[in-house]
């Protein structure tokens, strides 16, 4: 009511200022972005910084508990668990980001078309998504990988396919409620074609809820990829990957060598935790209404 001044900050080149504001406003967001930066750093520079080669075996050092020289201990082949956990970040992150990007793009296009034009196209697409969602998603992903072949690309495709319906449905709903809104009609009066109205006027308004979905999905995608390799699909040993490392370490938990499974599991959990927390922050960043 009486606040007339503080709005001008957010205007030109204010994205950075807005980012700082969002991070400062919510400590949880700050924490999640910090963790995310750590994971991205591990993915980019991890392989050059780790103290040991993640693949070199050393039978003399097998199953050493965490110590000063091996922070997370060593596994049954004497490989340094810390180095392996850090190096695995790149693979796990790439799989999940590639899968989520793919499902984001495909889901957005299909959902936007279904939501804007409706009709038989909408009905057909919806039934297809229903069909995908009717499967237990993990089993579906297993089936896809088993059918297409046991490679990392196919893990990405399988993860993308099972996530497409979530994006498509979200975008469909967001587009559908704005299809007849005043600003969409106004855009048509300004000489925009239907495609332009959809792509440049309506779709950007669906971004804030999409961002929440993206960050949740990144977490699921990591779990999914790790789960597939846990049961022996996709990534193959000796390649370091959190899912495989947990699977291999599980054999040694009973004999008291807890660290082999614990640390990759912990990193997996931290990564999923980070992405889940990031959702609200990402939404606040892409939503202009938060810039006040």
């Amino acid at each position, binding site marked *: *009511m009486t606040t007339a001044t503080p709005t*001008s900050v957010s205007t030109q080149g204010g994205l950075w200022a807005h980012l700082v504001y969002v991070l400062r406003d919510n400590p949880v967001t700050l924490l999640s972005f910090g963790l995310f930066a750590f994971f991205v750093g591990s993915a980019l520079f991890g392989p050059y910084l780790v103290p040991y080669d993640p693949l070199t075996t050393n039978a003399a050092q097998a199953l050493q508990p965490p110590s000063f020289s091996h922070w997370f201990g060593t596994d049954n082949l004497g490989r340094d668990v810390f180095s392996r956990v850090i190096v695995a970040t790149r693979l796990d992150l790439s799989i999940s980001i590639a899968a989520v990007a793919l499902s984001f793009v495909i889901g957005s296009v299909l959902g936007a078309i279904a939501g804007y034009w409706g009709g038989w196209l909408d009905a057909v697409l919806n039934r297809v998504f229903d069909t995908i969602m009717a499967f237990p998603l993990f089993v579906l992903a297993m089936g896809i990988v088993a059918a297409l072949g046991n490679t990392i690309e196919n893990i990405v495709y399988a993860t993308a396919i099972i996530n497409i319906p979530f994006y498509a449905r979200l975008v469909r709903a967001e587009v559908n409620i704005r299809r007849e809104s*005043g*600003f969409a*009609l*106004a*855009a048509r009066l*300004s000489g925009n074609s239907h495609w332009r109205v959809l792509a440049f006027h309506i779709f950007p308004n669906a971004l804030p809820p999409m961002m929440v979905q993206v960050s949740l999905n990144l977490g699921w995608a990591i779990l999914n990829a790790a789960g597939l390799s846990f049961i022996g699909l996709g990534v193959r040993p000796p390649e370091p990957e959190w899912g495989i490392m947990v699977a291999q370490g599980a054999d040694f938990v009973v004999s008291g060598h807890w660290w082999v499974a614990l640390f990759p599991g912990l990193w997996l959990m931290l990564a999923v935790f980070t992405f889940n927390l990031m959702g609200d922050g990402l939404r606040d960043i892409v939503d*202009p209404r938060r810039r*006040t």
Partner: protein
Amino acid sequence: MMLSIKDLAVGFRTRRGEVQAVRGISLELAKGETLGIVGESGSGKSVTSFALMRILDAGGSITAGEVTYSGIDLRRASERDMRTIRGREISMIFQNPRAALNPIRKVGHQIEDVLRQHARATRGDAREKAIQALRDVRINDPEARYHAYPFELSGGMCQRIVIALALACDPRLLIADEPTTGLDITTQKAVMDLSQELIRERGMASILITHDLGLAAQYCDRLAVMKDGEIVETGPAEAVFANPQHTYTCRLVEATPRPDASVRSLLPADRRPPELEYTPSDQPLLEVRDLRKTFAGKAGPVRAVKGISFTVNQGQSVGLVGESGCGKSTTSSMLVRLLDPTEGQILYQGNDLAQIPAEQFGKHPLRGDIQLVFQDATDSLNPRHNAGDCIAEPLRRLAGLRGKALRARVEELAELTGLPANLLSRFPHQLSGGQKARVGIARAIALDPKFLILDEPTAALDVSIQAVILNLLADLRARLGMSYLFVSHDLNVVRLLCDEVIVMQDGEIVEAGPAAQVMTAPAHPYTRALLSAAPRPPERVLETEPLAEVQSAL
């Protein structure tokens, strides 16, 4: 005194610290009295009523003052006592009747719920009492309506149900918060007359909260005018309306459209620039011939527009008046070429635009000539585009302007519509209602249209802002020589801007003619019903009034 409010202050905790919504107001209400609380949006009138019912939103609290109802201290009463008081002693009617009713329960059951909650009925006689309550609010065939769901009923019918709910337990005080906003004018009259009658019959006291000074003056004994959380004036309704003391009340009274006003006289007396010269020509610009639109409905075809014909001359303003569902929005969608007519011609300077499919009209050279100002400015602005981008959009797409030329034109349009240039970088949610309306108008006139359709451009605005926007539209017409088709449900507003008026009912034109003639000597019974349903505030005698009339006549 039945209800007394002393120095009531209500604050809300927000991200920017505490905001005072109500700043120490005092009110008294006697038994059987009707009090009107009048104010514009943000004045704190609704918050006051929420505070005394103790149903404030999270973060809101009464920070000071006392509220006493029949000796009970409402501020300190326990939540349990409040539950008994709400509905049984004090009940409330909300603005949107559909939102106030549970959409998945039969209306009869909803009334039973209230009756049984307050132990006014037992399992055995609840149904009978609910039907009686429906009968009391003059619902035809209450036994059948008992089984209706809210979505099966019209807006006016839903509001009657809400009134039945509010009155079911014979409360002694009824608070109506904008009970008729969003209803058609004839429905508004029916609902207000009914509730007034019921209140009188039962000897209840009531508080009517509204933005419409005319409505409050007609139905209330006493008025309290609120502004920025404070009461600026109270007094008997007639006195407040006829002889307002506070400058804000004066401005409100003047800004309320009434049969004798000119568009300039709505503005405060000290801010009335001379009216601009404006002469409509006899050359027809747009001719509509036997225009029809039929939609495919689930229960057979719906004939929304049943063959209408009219002409708009160059520089002329024509009002299209009717209530919801009369086909006026369908007509304006067809004329602005967002919707294809089923049959008929739209002759624009001799070209039949109805032949061009709406899909292709976006690229047509005449696209810029015919534009629309939307009803709800908030809805018509993309939340992700700032004001400048919104205005620039048609210039970019249709006029091909870029860079400096584009910026210069946007700034020129902002100046023309009275929008400060520093607001151009703001997003819609950072603008006020009036500013958003200006952005919408600037966008619509960006391409120098010859024919502008105004779809209730002021319906969502406060009266004082409405006065400013109507004057802006009058000035723009005179400066740019546009023709207007002013679509509205409010004859008093239409009359201010229009030379000709067309009245529509059920997809047909029932009356058309010069505005003055339709207003003073309506021929069709529907037009007469519309005119008589408009709130009729007491006559006001102000020494400034004749002066304003002389000015406008010159």
